[in-house]
């Protein structure tokens, strides 16, 4: 535990140092103002726009899309994983495709979705789910694979019903892998939503950043970029904390 | 009658220790302390040990008593905090020439077949190719791996893989062979067979052997002398001479003398093992 804390301190120190260095470079105009504004100015601007609420609708829209995409990809991915797991021939047929899935630049299908759904949340959620769902499927399959056979045997000796065994033995045993799937789904949903908004959309944080960029509003643009970095860091830290707690039960 | 070490000492009580110059390998007053994250762990010692040239010496002790640390010091992988370590009369600084080590875990390289695994050390040392071929063929034949020379470790059982590791050590013609629980992962019957192989190797090479094992019967049947270690920090609380003939094999288990030796070992070791189990950490 002491080691983890000192590492966290070191990490914080390094990040702080880097930010300070960038701040210095900006203040001294070594990095020109029209390329990047100083981190402190980014933070100040972010507070300003959060207070003024001019981007609140966009922020809420993005977060909502991320939540919907995550929920959809986790549930659909889990169910799909279960189905695939229980049909070995289906699994054998799908496995090469699943393995190659993330090789394909899925983004190229975004225009197709816009064509299908029009510009709006539909296409955005569709592409985000498309991006995230396979990581959940793979994580589900991994988790179910990793359940040691001896645990199921134990369940049968206790004469547990199928449902009881699933809920009380299989689910907890697969939980760490499943949670990894959830983490990845969140990350991919985030990337999918923001990227789609950036490329082509009418609302959302991604759209706001693109708009600010096209209109040379650097201050707003960087403030929003900082917001995304903070959101991602925060969510990651939260999920990692839960993950660590799940893992520490398993390992010394 | 078995000559027996003095039983009074909680510290190391050397029995018939040959002087450092005459011993093949010798440790005097060696301790080892690990420091990590602000805490220090007294892992071993103080230990006195003299290995006569060509003898077969086993070390038994409870888990975590520092047996592996002892081996690391003799191999030159770890310097001792206090005391001296000598091999062939010279101080041990780094891994000395003439020392071979077989580890507990499978150290065979999965990306090389058996032949290349065994030849690996010789090739790196720049030995002449004809000499390499001669030694590798001999070692592979000696360890019964001839039919598997082109196979990869992944295709072999655990016992075979350890044979590959032993063959890889054998080709370097070491004068001192250190083995750290090499048969720990194998089942009892395989272990007995491997024990016989080790004795064959020992007679053939006339090397000095130090074997670390947790199996009392293994130590009792294979060795000329057995050292019993206490719990951490490990010191020798007893050193027993077995008095076996050099041409022994695993069938000594049927001799009553074998029972005496194991009884004696367990008498000392049982106390230490119970002590070890009652502590929370390993």
């Amino acid at each position, binding site marked *: 535990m002491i080691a983890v804390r000192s590492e966290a301190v*070191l*990490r914080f120190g*390094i*990040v702080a140092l880097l930010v300070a260095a960038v701040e210095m470079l900006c203040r001294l105009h070594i990095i020109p103002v029209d*390329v*990047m504004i100083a981190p402190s100015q980014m933070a100040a601007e972010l507070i300003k726009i959060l207070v003024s609420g001019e981007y609140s609708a966009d922020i809420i829209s993005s977060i909502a899309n991320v939540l919907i995409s995550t929920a959809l990809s986790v549930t659909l991915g889990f169910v799909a994983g279960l189905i695939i797991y229980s049909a070995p021939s*289906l699994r*054998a*047929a*799908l496995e*090469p*495709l699943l393995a*190659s899935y*993330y*090789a*394909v*630049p899925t*983004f*190229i*299908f975004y*225009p*197709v979705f*816009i*064509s*299908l759904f029009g510009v709006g949340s539909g296409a955005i959620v569709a592409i985000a789910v498309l991006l995230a769902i396979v990581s959940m499927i793979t994580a589900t399959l991994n988790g179910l694979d990793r359940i040691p056979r001896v645990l199921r045997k134990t369940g049968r000796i206790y004469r547990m019903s199928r449902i009881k065994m699933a809920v009380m033995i299989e689910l907890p045993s697969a939980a760490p892998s499943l949670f990894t799937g959830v983490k990845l789904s969140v*990350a991919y949903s985030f*990337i999918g*939503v*923001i*990227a789609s908004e*950036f*490329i*082509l959309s009418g609302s959302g944080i*991604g759209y706001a*950043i693109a708009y600010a*960029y096209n209109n040379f509003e650097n201050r707003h643009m960087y403030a929003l*970029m900082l917001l*995304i970095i903070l959101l*991602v860091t925060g969510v*990651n830290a939260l999920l*990692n904390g839960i993950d660590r707690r799940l893992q520490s039960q398993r390992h010394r | 009658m078995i000559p027996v070490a003095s039983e009074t000492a909680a510290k190391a009580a050397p029995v018939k220790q040959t002087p450092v110059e005459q011993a093949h390998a010798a440790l005097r007053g060696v301790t080892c302390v690990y420091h990590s994250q602000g805490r220090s762990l007294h892992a071993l010692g103080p230990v006195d040990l003299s290995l006569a040239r060509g003898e077969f010496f086993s070390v038994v002790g409870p888990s975590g008593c520092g047996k592996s640390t002892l081996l690391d010091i003799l*191999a030159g*992988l770890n310097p001792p905090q206090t005391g001296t370590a000598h091999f062939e009369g010279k101080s041990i600084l*780094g*891994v000395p*020439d003439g020392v*071979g*080590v077989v*580890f507990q*875990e*499978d*150290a065979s*390289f*999965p*990306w090389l077949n058996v032949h290349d695994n065994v030849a*690996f050390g010789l090739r*790196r*040392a720049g030995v002449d190719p004809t000499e390499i071929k001669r030694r590798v063929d001999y070692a592979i034949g000696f360890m019964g791996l001839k039919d598997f020379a082109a196979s*990869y470790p*992944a295709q072999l059982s655990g016992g075979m893989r350890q044979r590959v590791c032993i063959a890889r050590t054998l080709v370097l013609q070491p004068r001192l062979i250190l083995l750290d629980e090499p048969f720990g992962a194998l089942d009892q019957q395989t272990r007995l067979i491997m024990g016989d192989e080790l004795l064959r190797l020992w007679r053939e090479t006339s090397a000095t052997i130090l074997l670390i094992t947790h199996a009392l019967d293994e130590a009792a049947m294979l060795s000329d002398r057995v050292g019993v270690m206490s719990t951490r920090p490990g010191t020798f609380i007893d050193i027993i001479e077995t008095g076996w003939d050099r041409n022994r094999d695993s069938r000594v288990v049927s001799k009553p003398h074998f029972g005496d030796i194991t009884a004696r070992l367990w008498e000392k070791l049982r106390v230490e093992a119970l002590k070890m189990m009652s502590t929370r950490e390993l």
Partner: protein
Amino acid sequence: MHKFGGTALVILACVAIWQSLYVYVGDSALASPLQTVEKLSELLRNDDFWIHVSETGRAFVWAFAIAVLGGVSLGMALGLGRLAGNVAEPILVTLYSIPKVVLYPLILLCFGLGISAKVAFGVMHGLIPIALFSMNAIRQMKPVYRRTSQVLRLTSLQTALTVIVPAILPEITSGVRLGLSLTLLGVLIGEMFASQRGLGFLLTSAINLGQIDTIMAIALLLTVFAIACNTLMMMFERHLTHRQSR
């Protein structure tokens, strides 16, 4: 080969779903499988198209080379130092989770419009996963290998080249395989809004002109290319590992 029969069936099923979707939605929203293939062959016979392809190809090769060299070196350096690795890993993982689009304006402002910006995008997408995989590869290496090389009295260089590299190669190849796809993605996205040439640019103009068949033809081409590369690399990985595990 019959084990691919199942996969072939799944692919056929996907094409069937595609066709029925087309029938349901109509020409304005989707192109049928047949139309897509026809458009693609038309494009492949067009010289201009190949200019765009080579543009993307050039940027991709540069980006991939930098991502692999940078990622593997960084990963190995971090993996060898325990503290460095532990400290750096969460930073890298968080950087990786940030939607890189968000940093695009920054890249454009730094590199301007042109091939260097595209290469930068590609590297930005591919370098971190390769670094993470490489770092993991070293950390997962069995400690007994290093002890063996000590006992065999190998020099540091010999240890690195004859023990460490072969031991970690399968894992690094995994990372490079992932990095390949991501680098390609980065380059394409870079072209989509920061270039006047390349497949990504073609995609954007097709979007603006509403040419759904062109969009899908390019998407099909890229999909086939990506899966082909990925499959080749997986076969290479399998060749490396089939000797190493039961």
